[in-house]
């Protein structure tokens, strides 16, 4: 194989996307850890009077604070899907296009079922999210809404602010706190499963494709082959700006 591939640096994940990603990671981590503690707290051994301790109250405070962060960065991300670049746009997540489904089956074959192509088809390499990823993010978005609705509904009865109060209708909808709490707790597990698969697949792509998948969420850049960019240019997907792009070789 004497084919030389030139890679170009492409700014894929803009700053708001990266801020969303990392604040979301932080919030989810805190939510899951404090959530487990709230569900089954350790009994601390202390001879102090209850008046002088606020341990569990603090754990709950962290959970509620993280919940607000989780909600607000989600709002930021939704806003950015209308303002951001093509990779952040809601259009990238819209599942009902032929192109999307072609890419979906391609990723299922090559990356999930680990089949090999005889000849690499550059048109099928995704620059931003691939279609399996976007679909999983859509599912997680719905689950995030479920968590926000059930969580703030459980919180709403103690709150005096209108924002959590907005969700109090959820409890009578399901019939009571019992079921709402069960939904909240069960749905949490899907975030753990998602995080496992997500992190694994990021490493998988980085290792097998060498296009900077892992570092892209820090700096925002991915490396895309010239061929792919030319194809994108012909397809009117991406403008190539040579003067700005930094060429990397392999």
């Amino acid at each position: 194989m004497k084919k030389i591939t030139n890679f170009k640096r492409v700014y894929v994940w803009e700053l708001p996307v990266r801020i969303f990603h990392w604040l979301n990671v932080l919030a989810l981590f805190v939510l899951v850890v404090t959530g487990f503690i709230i569900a089954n707290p350790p009994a601390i051994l202390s001879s102090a009077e209850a008046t002088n301790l606020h341990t569990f109250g603090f754990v709950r405070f962290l959970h509620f604070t993280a919940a607000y962060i989780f909600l607000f960065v989600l709002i930021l991300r939704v806003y950015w899907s209308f303002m951001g670049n093509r990779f952040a746009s809601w259009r990238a997540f819209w599942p009902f296009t032929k192109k999307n489904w072609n890419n979906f089956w391609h990723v299922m074959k090559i990356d999930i079922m680990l089949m090999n192509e005889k000849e690499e088809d550059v048109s099928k390499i995704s620059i931003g999210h691939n279609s399996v990823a976007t679909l999983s993010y859509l599912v997680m978005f719905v689950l995030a809404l479920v968590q926000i609705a059930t969580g703030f509904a459980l919180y709403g009865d103690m709150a005096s602010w209108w924002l959590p109060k907005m969700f109090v209708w959820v409890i009578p909808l399901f019939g009571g706190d019992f079921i709402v709490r069960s939904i909240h707790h069960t749905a949490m597990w899907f975030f753990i499963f998602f995080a496992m698969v997500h992190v694994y697949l990021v490493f998988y792509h980085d290792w097998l494709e060498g296009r900077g998948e892992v570092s892209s969420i820090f700096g925002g850049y991915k490396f895309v082959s010239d061929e792919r960019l030319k194809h994108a240019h012909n397809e009117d997907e991406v403008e190539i700006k040579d003067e700005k792009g930094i060429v990397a070789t392999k």
Partner: protein
Amino acid sequence: MAKNNELRETYYESIIKQGYSRRDFMKFATYIAAYMGLENSMVGQVAKSLETTHRVPVIWEHFQECTCCSESFIRSDHPIVADIILDKISLDYTLTLMAASGHQAEAAKQATMEKYKGEYILCVEGSVPMGDDGNYCCIGGRSAKDLLIESAAGAKAIIAWGSCASNGCVQAAKPNPTNATPIHKIIKNKPIIRVPGCPPIGEVMAGVIVHLVTFGRLPELDRLGRPKAFYAKRVHDSCYRRPYYDAGLFAQTFDDKNAKDGYCLYKLGCKGPMTYNSCGTIKWNNGVSYPIQSGHGCIGCSEENFWDNGPFYERLTKVPGLHEEGLADDIGKVGAGILAGGLAVHAIAANISKRKELTSRINRGISNEKNIDS
């Protein structure tokens, strides 16, 4: 209501007739106003209403139930509740307490239903079995379903006493062999007040009745049809042990020192954090105590499906929709383990399947490294 007024005395008249003084009556009005969550200035209005309102006819139906609601009601703190509100109010029909029995009793009910059509209040204690065409519960040869539909037709309002009538309670627990059904799922065209609890607190029951008769309309209800005055707060949020919860001080077993010291019973499965009721404020048996104060966690008796929401003495989360003992954390841990194993297998398979691509990339990288000008 006007046409039948001459036949009935007012509440005040019957209270005085029973031998209570005006002073006792005023005490009662103050007491019940406080329980109803009314402010001080409303006491006069309650007293005036009881003086001028003619007794509202009440039919009290008993279906699939244990009569603990009636028991709770007659043990209500103030004697006037039992003497007047129950005796006088339930005069028309209540199987367990009325003097008449058999055909006589049924005839009395028929007479009330005809005479006070659209005026009487229907109190229902117990759920209605809808399975086998209602044959699981029959009174006087007629099914509960039949009787309910008949007596509900002319009712002004319906009070669903207790968890049976409000939520189905133990009869409706899985697998619910008789298809026990709460009242609001059968009667759709009448205002229904749900007063859940197994049983509801006597003062709560008295408060609901007095509200209905003094103001002539339903008390303010929440989205589940429960009176807001009594069901707006969780037991947890009004619990005197709440400071221990916030401090993280929990009893681990019922016989440890923490339990003795009165620490929070959260880890022992207390359902207070999910249960809406007034136990923490009104309490039971003339305000003496309530379950948590007596050292036992709340079992959530006023919540829907409380029999099917996991064990009473453990804090577990069941997966909604799974009928068996499917615990979210057990399933989650197994799921995460299987997933981790699957990902490891996928990682190995990926390296084998894509080895050509991978080696060529690694080789190119190595040769690039060697070609660096030095």
